[in-house]
């Protein structure tokens, strides 16, 4: 405590505890007087908050405080509320005081006395102090125990019980580290929910999950999950819901729809519901997913696949919490949190006129792009264990991998040649296949070798089906290229795109020749090759 600065106490007059007109008032502990009787506290000014109807009491109390503590200037301040147990009213009144008070935190120290007033007032004072509307420390007083014979007779008063004791609580102090660490534990637990308990070794992903945890707890605004297919958007959306549920932030259900699976009227009616006869085939009323997600979470995957009409209705539902079922003339209310998923670049879709700009602006507030498996290769091992456990849980059959098999699979999985096109979905399928085929519940090296071949086969045609990688990269110059160069360049670009760095791509492309050379400058070699086509790493990666 800086003792040379004036100490200002702010407190409510306690119409019950501080009351008393006759001499008997000195017989008992009165918190506002007791605060000024503390041996180790000198209060320069006391801001006494009270209602106008307690003016007389306030005057008497001020005189008593001045008598026991002549150094204290008592200032009377009116604050009005008709019901001291009405939270809104009391908070409003105290907030008004805090907003209008000429705080000088550079010159004075402040204590907010929370012993007087109703419990509601105490809570409000705490909240206002905790939120720094009142830049103060809290002080609590209590009637002291009677002085025992063992106490030191130096305090100069033999009747400390009437002065009571006090405790100062600084909500900013680091001694609340313990509490803070409990919050941190809770948040770590939240992050564990979000990752299904799979520890991540990827720092970027860990940061992303921590942020998602924070946002999930703090907001009901829409969240947009990006990232390639199979990166875990659906799983994460469900986990966000579970986290919110565990913290009592939602009480409705989790409702999900992959927008790519419904088109036209079917999409509209699935989302918003319809009245009987709204269109051919609408033989009954249908509720719709938005209504079902009321006070819950609605996860719309592949939101970019939604038609423009549905987008407009969805926007209104997100903004105003109301929408019109097909064929209905009365709007329906539903309060849900929207989580949208998309593996497409929605900005490009807006540009192409396939996605409404205003809807994107609305759902783009919190955007999290989940990295693909290839960007989180260090997380393959924990995810492998997780998939094995999941198989055991789903099939009631424990499956293990022997050491060689495990090492071989992990070596393959971490190598650049494993492109993991469908990311965690690929990994999950691979584990499911191996586990299903495992004789005696044990995955051996042969099974792994077989699975690697299968994955390679799966990825190759998909890479080709992915179209010519040179499209859009070379433009008109493409026509001038010989087929001989085109084929070579196309494969080089493919390798570049599934590699994390230029060096990694170089190592893959020049894997054989680098063994023969003493200095390996594959990156430089690759860069020079690309430069021949007016290309560089950034452009190839797109």
């Amino acid at each position, binding site marked *: *405590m800086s*003792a*040379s600065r004036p100490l200002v106490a702010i407190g409510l007059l306690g119409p019950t505890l501080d009351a008393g007109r006759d*001499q*008997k*008032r*000195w*017989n008992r502990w009165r918190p506002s*007087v007791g605060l*000024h*009787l*503390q*041996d*180790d*506290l*000198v209060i320069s000014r006391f801001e006494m908050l009270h209602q106008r109807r307690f003016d007389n009491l306030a005057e008497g109390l001020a005189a*008593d405080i001045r*008598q*026991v*503590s*002549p*150094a204290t200037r008592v200032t009377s301040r009116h604050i009005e509320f008709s019901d001291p147990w009405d939270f809104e009213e009391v908070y409003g009144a105290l907030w008004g005081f805090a907003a209008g008070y000429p705080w000088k935190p550079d010159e004075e120290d402040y204590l907010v006395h929370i012993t007087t007033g109703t419990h509601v007032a105490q809570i409000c004072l705490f909240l206002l102090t905790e939120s720094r509307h009142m830049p103060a420390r809290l002080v609590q007083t209590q009637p002291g125990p*009677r002085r025992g014979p063992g106490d*030191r*007779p*130096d*305090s*100069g*008063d*033999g*009747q400390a*019980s*009437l*002065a009571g004791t006090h405790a100062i609580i600084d909500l900013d102090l680091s001694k609340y580290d313990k509490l803070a660490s409990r919050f941190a534990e809770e948040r770590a637990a939240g992050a564990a929910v979000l990752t299904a308990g799979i520890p991540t070794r990827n720092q970027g992903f860990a940061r992303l999950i921590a942020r998602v945890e924070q946002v999930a707890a703090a907001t009901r605004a829409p969240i947009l999950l990006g990232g390639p297919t199979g990166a875990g958007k659906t799983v994460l959306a469900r986990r966000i819901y579970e986290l919110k549920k565990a913290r009592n932030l939602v009480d409705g259900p989790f409702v999900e729809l992959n927008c790519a699976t419904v088109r036209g009227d079917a999409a509209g009616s699935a989302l918003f519901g319809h009245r009987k006869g709204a269109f051919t085939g609408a033989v009954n009323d249908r509720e719709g997913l938005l209504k079902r997600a009321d006070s819950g979470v609605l996860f719309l995957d592949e939101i970019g696949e939604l038609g423009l009409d549905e987008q407009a209705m969805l926007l209104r539902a997100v903004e105003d919490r109301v929408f019109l079922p097909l064929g209905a003339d009365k709007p329906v209310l539903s309060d849900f949190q929207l989580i949208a998923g998309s593996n497409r670049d929605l900005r490009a879709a807006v540009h192409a006129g396939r996605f409404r700009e205003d809807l994107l602006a609305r759902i783009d507030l919190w955007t999290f792009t989940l990295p693909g498996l290839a960007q989180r290769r260090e997380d393959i091992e924990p995810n492998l264990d997780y998939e094995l456990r999941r198989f055991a849980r789903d099939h009631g059959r424990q499956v293990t991998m022997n050491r060689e098999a495990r090492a071989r699979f992990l070596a393959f999985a971490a190598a650049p040649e494993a492109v993991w096109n469908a990311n965690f979905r690929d990994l999950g399928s691979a584990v499911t296949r191996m586990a299903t085929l495992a004789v005696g519940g044990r995955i051996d090296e042969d099974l792994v070798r077989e699975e690697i071949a299968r994955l390679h086969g799966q990825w190759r045609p998909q890479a080709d089906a992915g179209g010519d990688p040179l499209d859009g990269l070379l433009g008109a110059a493409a026509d001038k290229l010989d087929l001989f160069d085109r084929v070579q360049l196309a494969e080089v670009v493919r390798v570049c795109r599934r590699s994390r760095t230029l060096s990694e791509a170089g190592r893959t492309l020049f894997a054989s020749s680098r063994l023969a050379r003493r200095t390996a400058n594959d990156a430089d070699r690759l860069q020079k090759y690309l430069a021949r086509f007016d290309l560089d790493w950034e452009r190839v990666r797109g």
Partner: protein
Amino acid sequence: MLTIDGSQGEGGGQILRTSLALAALTGTPVRIERIRARRPKPGLQRQHLVAVQAAARVCNGRLEGAALHSGAIEFWPQAPCAGTYAFDIGSAGSTTLVLQTVLPILLDADGPATVEIRGGTHNSMAPPVEFLQQSFLPVLHRVGVSASLALERHGFQPAGGGCIRAAIQPGQAQIPLALHERGKAIARHAEVLLANLPAHVASREALALKHALHWSHQEVDEREVDADGPGNAVIASLRHSEVTAVFTAFGELRKAAEAVAQDCARQVARHCASQAPVCEHLADQLLLPLALGAGGSFRCTALSEHARTNAAVIAAFLGEVVAFAEQDGACLVTVRGRQTG
């Protein structure tokens, strides 16, 4: 600059008060450190701060570190000033402890001074006004100090609201003290003070005291006093031709009236069992004025930790001028005064 260890001996506010007075009277800047270092709440408390500031006021002294919880202060005194002083200390401390600090300083002022102090006058941890009036000041008169003390209004803890007024003529003690016998017993008297408490408290205390000491009705009075808040004290005095001894016990919340009277009676009885004229509390108070004045010697019933601490602080400023010796079951205290030459 002289440095005093504030944690030595009794280790409380006494060192502070004695050091400040000696610093002012010898014109020695002083640094008092480790203030109350061995106490549960170390450093300056409110009541100490009040005494420190009062000492600085009466001699225009400069203070460093005089703040709540401070563990060290530095004090540069100047010449004590005559005049009229008023200190309002609320119930943060005892008026008599503040007077105890400023009185010796003002004896060196350039003229008469009056001091009015508002706050607590009857406080269990400080000498009550009656003790100063009946016991302490008469001894000072014998050695040539001229000061009087009036109780304007009683003030009890925690309400305070009391007032004392002291008139002080300049001049330290001129005559060496020789106080070895009590002399002839002249009178004994007790007063039960009561404020804003049921009357039976006073009558029970009076009855218990008479019973315990075998005193007569005429020797014990009950007196209702005007004060803020409740207050109760039993004050007994034994007047001899050479000296008057005063003993006090204070009423406390949840303490039986009879127990308060017993407290006081026990102190009286203990004093009567000895022949020495000076009681323990008076001994504490006499060391400083004697050392600053013409010195002298007295016999006392016992030596308190306060007295030994006072002697140590005096030694730091004036050298080893206080000597203690055992004599016939009492303690002989000899003080060499500054004015002795």
